[in-house]
């Protein structure tokens, strides 16, 4: 295998390991809801929450990089220009993530000074990592961007998919710089923070996973490049056409002018369109090829990505996106429900699909199939849907009892949290969290053992039709 593919395997292994940390810290965070005294005075809810959401960002980012480094040599016919730098930075990245996790667990907080933001944590959701670590992440992404764009320039050839990915690298790197400033005015702080969270995660990441899935579909089904690239351009037009101003649905209540209610409501209501397009595309491709593939788990995870993205990001997002309803649902577990389903459907499933694609080639398997991947698939998706459903009920109870009839005060908040619908939902979420964790163990076991006992054979990669 090429150096790029070896690096990709390292990134994918690290991604799956941090996926485990995310799952464990998620279970921990869920525990506080049913037992608030749990580890009180030792490890607070906030630390479990930070570990949960930050490792989610990290494992998805590592998964993306693993996927791209896997496909790069196939697309350009050569090693990435800065593969040596990427190899070194991989270990720096892993070490930095472990160091930051140790700081979160053992140091937890510091005095209200700039020094705390540099050394311990920045206290901004999703980008809590201290600035020294954020600089490291920026450096890793810069080298990642250089390896995509620089390799295209040196290879003197570029495909449509890689052209989209190359252009996408610019906002991917630039938007992350919003992780650094300390802005006293919270209205302005949240205004730019949403550029990071919405435009980075919900736009540039959507484009990136669109490119990755385009490459995966060519690999898995031999779909023609012309069709894949046509769909990718349509997706880019729809994602950015609706998503750039769809950003406005985060500007309803942060102090910004009320024209955002109309603009954000309208464009974010259209945001499910590209996701519906991906479902149509997936069904079309699967139908044309009569579901024939040599890698069934990768294919099923790709389908799960299309459907999960549409349902989690699209349908669950649409439910709360209009300002008339968002006024009640915003800041409740309803948002958490959407968040869980969306991140899982949009990104996690896609990365798991690439894991199986890489595994097939790395272990030289003619076909990839077994019963244990089916268990992992059912438990992970079933657990996730159960968690999203539980959180949806909890959020609805909050929207009604805390906001609509409660008056949104501390007393109303407590009344909402003590409402039986909310309490039952928290137990239910924990139960489905355990199902999800069991699915993770099945996945890890399957990835570790799949094909190990079978004879390896030489396989020919699927060549996309022209």
């Amino acid at each position, binding site marked *: 295998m090429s150096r790029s593919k070896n690096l990709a395997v390292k990134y994918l292994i690290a991604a799956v390991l941090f996926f485990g940390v995310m799952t464990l810290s998620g279970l921990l965070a869920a525990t506080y809801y049913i037992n608030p005294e749990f580890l009180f005075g030792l490890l607070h809810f906030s630390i479990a929450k930070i570990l949960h959401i930050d490792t989610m960002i990290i494992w998805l980012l590592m998964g993306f990089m693993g996927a791209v480094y896997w496909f790069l040599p196939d697309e350009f016919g050569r090693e990435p220009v800065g593969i040596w730098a990427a190899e070194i930075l991989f270990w720096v990245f892993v070490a930095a993530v472990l160091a930051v996790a140790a700081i979160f667990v053992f140091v937890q907080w510091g005095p209200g000074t700039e020094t705390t933001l540099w050394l311990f944590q920045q*206290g901004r959701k999703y980008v809590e990592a201290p600035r020294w670590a954020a600089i490291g992440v920026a450096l890793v992404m810069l080298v990642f961007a250089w390896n995509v764009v620089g390799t295209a320039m040196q290879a003197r050839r570029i495909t449509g998919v890689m052209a989209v990915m190359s252009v996408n690298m610019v906002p991917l790197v630039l938007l992350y710089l919003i992780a650094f400033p300390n802005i006293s005015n*919270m209205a302005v702080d949240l205004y730019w923070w949403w550029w990071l969270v919405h435009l980075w995660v919900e736009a540039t990441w959507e484009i990136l996973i669109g490119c990755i899935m385009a490459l995966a579909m060519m690999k898995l089904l031999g779909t023609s490049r012309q069709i894949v690239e046509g769909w990718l351009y349509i997706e880019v037009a729809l994602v950015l*056409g609706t998503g750039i101003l769809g950003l406005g649905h985060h500007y309803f209540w942060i*102090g910004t002018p009320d024209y955002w209610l109309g*603009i954000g409501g309208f464009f974010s209501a259209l945001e499910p369109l590209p996701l519906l397009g991906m479902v149509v595309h997936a069904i079309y491709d699967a139908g044309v090829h009569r579901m024939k593939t040599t890698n069934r788990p990768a294919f099923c995870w790709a389908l799960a990505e299309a459907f999960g993205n549409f349902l989690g990001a699209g349908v669950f997002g649409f439910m709360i996106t209009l300002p008339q309803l968002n006024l009640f649902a915003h800041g409740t577990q309803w948002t958490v429900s959407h968040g869980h389903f969306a991140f899982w459907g949009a990104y996690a499933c896609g990365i798991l699909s690439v894991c199986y694609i890489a595994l097939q080639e790395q272990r030289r398997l003619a076909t990839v199939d077994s019963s244990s991947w089916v268990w992992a698939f059912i438990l992970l998706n079933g657990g996730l849907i159960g968690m999203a459903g539980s959180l949806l009920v909890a959020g609805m109870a909050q929207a009604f009892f805390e906001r609509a009839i409660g008056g949104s005060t501390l007393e109303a908040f*407590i009344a909402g949290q003590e409402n039986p619908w909310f309490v039952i939902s928290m137990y239910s979420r924990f139960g489905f969290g355990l199902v999800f964790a069991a699915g993770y163990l099945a996945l890890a076991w399957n990835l570790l053992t799949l094909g190990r006992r079978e004879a390896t054979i030489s396989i020919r990669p699927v060549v996309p039709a022209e």
Partner: protein
Amino acid sequence: MQYEDPNCWRAGAISTTVVMAIVLVMLTIDSLDAINPGGSHVPPYTVINRHIEYAHNSKLGRDMPVIGSDEPLFGKSVTDTEAAALIEQGKLVIQSRACIDCHTFMGNGAYYAPDLTKAWLDPAWDAWIAITGAESREEAMARFLMAPEQYATWQRKMPDLGISRDEAVATVAYLKWLSSIDTNGFPIHFGRIKVSK
């Protein structure tokens, strides 16, 4: 057919993205003007010297802050510079203790503890004045922040985060200023309904 040519869709993707990005930049310029201190939606930091209420505006059909007469924080009126320093310090305290990873601000955060957007205006502080033995709302808030485990609100207790007196004062100033921001009616019905269990 032209639509089968990916280049046709590429042109569409580029033009759509460019148009939307330009519109976003224009709206951003206008929005930042409105949300800078002293803008149409965000009062200057010295608003902490004034009385703040949250009332229903029947003309706009939503709740919004109402800035009243003088009501200095901790009994001391502050200058522009002093107010800015307090707000800067308050935000640093909020970030250094990762408040947003339990609470929410303007609905954004971790949902485990109450939203703090209008916390300054919460009627619950009336009870805390008695509980903490303070003589004012701001003093009760400061005492709570410095020893939250001593004045536990309910089964989900706020942990002791080592907040000093100066840090507590700055945080209270920050929460008072935050409550003065016009958030288009969020959170709805704040403090206007009596909860019955």
